[in-house]
């Protein structure tokens, strides 16, 4: 897998609000009929992923703009 599809926070010890531990796991990022797998820190208990701010305001925002422009 490409390192560029792994998006983990650079610092901090993270714990989910449900109390579960956070571990890197594959998450399906989907849009319209497309999508692919990326690796995010994900709660082992409830499955909620942590989307780093730079991913959210960077690549994800730009993908959204492309899809809106389409």
């Amino acid at each position, binding site marked *: 897998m*490409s390192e*560029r599809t792994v998006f983990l926070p650079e610092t901090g010890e993270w714990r989910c609000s449900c109390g579960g531990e956070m571990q890197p796991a594959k998450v399906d990022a989907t849009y319209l009929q*497309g999508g*692919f797998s990326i690796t995010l820190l994900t709660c082992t208990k409830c499955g909620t992923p942590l989307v780093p701010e730079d991913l959210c305001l960077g*690549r994800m925002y*730009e*993908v959204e703009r*492309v899809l809106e422009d*389409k």
Partner: protein
Amino acid sequence: MPPAVAPYEREDVRRATGETLRPGGMALTERALALCRFPAGARVLDLGSGTGATVARLRQEGLAACGLDCSPTLLALAKARQAPLIAGLATALPLADGVLDGLFCECVLSAVNQPEPMLTEIARVLRPGGCFVLTDLYLRPGPTAQAGVPGCAGGAVYQDVLLERLSRHGLVPLRFEDHTRLLADLTCRLIFELGSASKVLSMITGRDPACSGGPKPRFGYCLVLAAKESL
């Protein structure tokens, strides 16, 4: 300055596109195969065969398919397939006149700087009634459209220009389908690989969007089927 690496030879681009190096992967190849209904043993060339994915698929279908590419890098990657692939230029095909029943040209025409001589060669090697399968970038109409961008999308033209160009070379368009959704999907993958939309645009147009100014072209992606004119 070292020579620029073509987008299709970049590893990061290949990670996003997969082995086919084009929007949609094999989806439009499968679509064209279903529409063309080549008989077993039909002689078909994949022009700009890249890593040989289409040639392998065509041979799986029972066709006498071979590929041609000018990139030593891609031909080396294709070696493992053990498919008949030859090094050559699209503007000087090493084939006799009228020997092909079909010719695939997937995401190649808009990337070459000599589309006219390439189309002359395509029309020359197809037999009358032979099927030309083209998948490619094109320019969609709209207030932000402009022609003439450089880079690997430099040859993208409007739909009417593309179809007129084929007709002028004796390749009669039978079908035009818009598949821009496949291009949007690949663009999203490329954004994740390369890091930003501006890097993707810079890669396919060969210029820095921040410095280029003016309206940006609206790219689309299409499948065109055409038949070589009968005598």
